[in-house]
């Protein structure tokens, strides 16, 4: 009999990179399906082009440029593609989606050495690249086609941004939106922003499956709520209220799915909380004082840069050591 000899442990948990990534895809599905229901086939096209190009580019780069075995089976490119697609307006032309995918996979992920090595969240790098390169397309939001009151041109956040520039009180804008409808279907905005409830459902799934811990997300929500509560308390004509800030824009998508990306977030709980506080605070500063209406992407990318430091500073307590 041939016997196998290897060191302990002799069994392994059910986790694999692929199973974790697949769980993230499953968690994103409710929101993706919602967005296709609201926006129709063009949204489906954006998501499909994004996922297929991310996977395709990763395959091409690993096989043809790096001459390695392809890594597409780990499902991480699918996650990046889905997240990128959900961050774009459904009116984005297909070739623009492909450019975003190339930047996300080619520049943000593979040039750093592939999965696990990148400093910045690939999907966000792709989105921000498109945002600064094609600002017109990326900030033109068309309301859901399946609604009678479909409108063009603004999201709640961009309207507020305009109001601030024009000196109109923001309450004139925020009073147009009911929080209940924002929770179910956010008017205007990208796919991933449209249904807060579907996104939160996915987040709960990830927590229950122990794929992620809730601390980063919760600390972002708490910081956004607290910061806006303070500013809104000071001047409610100039600054938007906490509920509006929590429900609008890409905050929920960013906090639940982008900030919790394993590779680009801190390892320890304390590090994660500091990371989340930073994202929440920067988001509110950009929303209140920046020239862009939305700040979640920038806030996450900025905090991504601090992750190595946070990993070094925030260590968990070791057993039996003071």
């Amino acid at each position: 009999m041939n016997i196998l000899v290897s060191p302990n442990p002799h069994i392994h948990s059910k986790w694999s990179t692929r199973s974790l990534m697949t769980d993230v895809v499953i968690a994103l599905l409710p929101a993706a399906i919602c967005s296709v229901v609201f926006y129709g086939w063009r949204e489906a096209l954006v998501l499909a082009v994004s996922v297929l190009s991310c996977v395709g580019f990763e395959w091409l780069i690993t096989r043809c440029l790096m001459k390695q075995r392809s890594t597409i089976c780990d499902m991480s490119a699918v996650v990046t593609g889905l997240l990128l697609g959900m961050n774009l307006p459904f009116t984005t032309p297909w070739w623009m989606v492909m450019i975003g995918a190339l930047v996300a996979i080619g520049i943000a992920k593979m040039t750093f050495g592939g999965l696990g090595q990148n400093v910045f969240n690939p999907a966000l790098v792709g989105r921000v690249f498109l945002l600064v390169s094609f600002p017109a397309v990326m900030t033109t939001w068309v309301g859901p086609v399946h609604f009678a009151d479909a409108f063009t041109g603004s999201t709640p956040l961009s309207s507020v941004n305009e109001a601030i520039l024009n000196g109109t009180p923001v309450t004139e804008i925020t009073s147009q939106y009911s929080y209940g409808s924002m929770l179910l279907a956010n008017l205007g905005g990208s796919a991933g922003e449209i249904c807060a409830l579907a996104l939160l459902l996915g987040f709960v799934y990830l927590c229950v499956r122990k794929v992620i811990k809730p601390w980063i997300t919760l600390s972002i929500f708490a910081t956004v709520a607290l910061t806006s509560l303070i500013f809104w308390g000071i001047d409610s004509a100039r600054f938007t209220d906490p509920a509006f800030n929590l429900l609008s824009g890409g905050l929920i998508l960013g906090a639940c799915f982008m900030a919790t990306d394993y590779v680009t977030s801190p390892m320890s709980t304390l590090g994660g909380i500091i990371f989340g506080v930073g994202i929440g605070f920067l988001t509110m500063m950009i929303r209140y004082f920046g020239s862009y209406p939305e700040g979640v992407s920038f806030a996450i990318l900025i905090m991504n840069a601090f992750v190595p430091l946070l990993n070094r500073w925030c260590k968990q307590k070791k057993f039996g050591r003071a």
Partner: protein
Amino acid sequence: MRKPTFSIGGVHPHDSKISRECRIEPMPLPDSAFLAVSQHIGAPAKPLVAVGDKVKVGQPIAEPGGFVSAYIHASVSGTVKSIAPRADLAGNPVMTIEIAREGDEWMEGIDQSDTLVTDIPDDNKALLEKIKLGGIVGLGGATFPTHVKLSPPPGSKCERLIINGCECEPYLTSDFRVLLEKGEQVIVGAAILKQVLGGVPCTVAIEENKPEAIAHINEVIAKLQKLSPKFNGIEVMTMKMRYPQGGEKQLIDAVMHRQVGSGALPISVGAVVQNVGTALAVYDMVQKNKPLIDNTVTVTGECFPHQANLLVRVGTPLRSILEHLGGIPEEAVKVISGGPMMGKAVANLDAATLKGTGALLLLTEKQTARKEEGPCIRCGKCAEACPMGLEPFLLQKLSRNGDVEALEANAAQDCIECGCCLYSCPANIPLLDIIRLGKADAMKAIRDRAAKK
């Protein structure tokens, strides 16, 4: 109320205790027993017999070779056939005394009956000496000589005795069966240990997945407490199910909420931990004059048709145990001495059992094959799982780079090699394999520095 458990890390593997219903049965005596002189932590024992000598069961055949060392007794009667190096389960040569068995003749004075003896002698010095003469070592895995653990160094004081009945490793059921079938003996053994330690309170820690054992031991304690006040102060604590609860440091943390410092002994926080099997061995020696010549071995695995908990004489070849139960099934690719998390894979089936052999586990290719290593995705699951609060992802990197200074600074020497990191890693990085090398380097650096002083 939340059940007590340790405070950092840990994992929840499926408990797979498929042999839990198998009663302890005696294994037929082997034709020859192979007794290694080094089957405890510490100095090897020195042989007391010569080739050709006739020995009886329970006769000492090797004496302690130092302070931290233990007696070894003949586990079968017969003739000493050889005293020579013999391959152990990893294939490394260890000095071994081989006894060719003739019949089953025991030393005079050993009480082989089942009668329970509950009267505990009062002379603690004599008790301690008897435990030493019985060759008793810790049967939870580390095989540390029990009499040494029971003699706290001057200045330290024991405040609590913990009887470790957690059996947190999947598959293992020998402690569970001992608790169920020999509960009285275990509790009398615990009372003896408690008395030797100065009458300290005693906690019997049992995980929640063994409710029958918890109920039974509670009954036994109540019954014995009616007989003698010596059994007062013994209580059962139901622990949450979590691996590695049975680790000494983790168990002390769970029971007493005290953390043993890096490199320190349990006694530094006032704790002494003894395994269920050790308590039984203490009873056998003190009350029945029977030294440590046999122990309970779980033989199990899903692929194995004849699960069993066997009472095996120390020095029985592993192959004969497996053959007694119908041989090794085709699908089995690995034979493990111990549990799936911390056990050692057997390279040599002709090796014999040791005092500390608690289980033989057979796993199939599908259950045990390592999967292909992928890149670290920095999920932090290893750090979350580490019961010592270490950062396996970092230690593994430092270890690959050979950075001994940083390994020591990041406490690689505190690693207890429980396997939680490798078990949880989704990228299948062989974390523990690599960290183990780094830990050895860090410990060597610490020893070298101490030697220079």
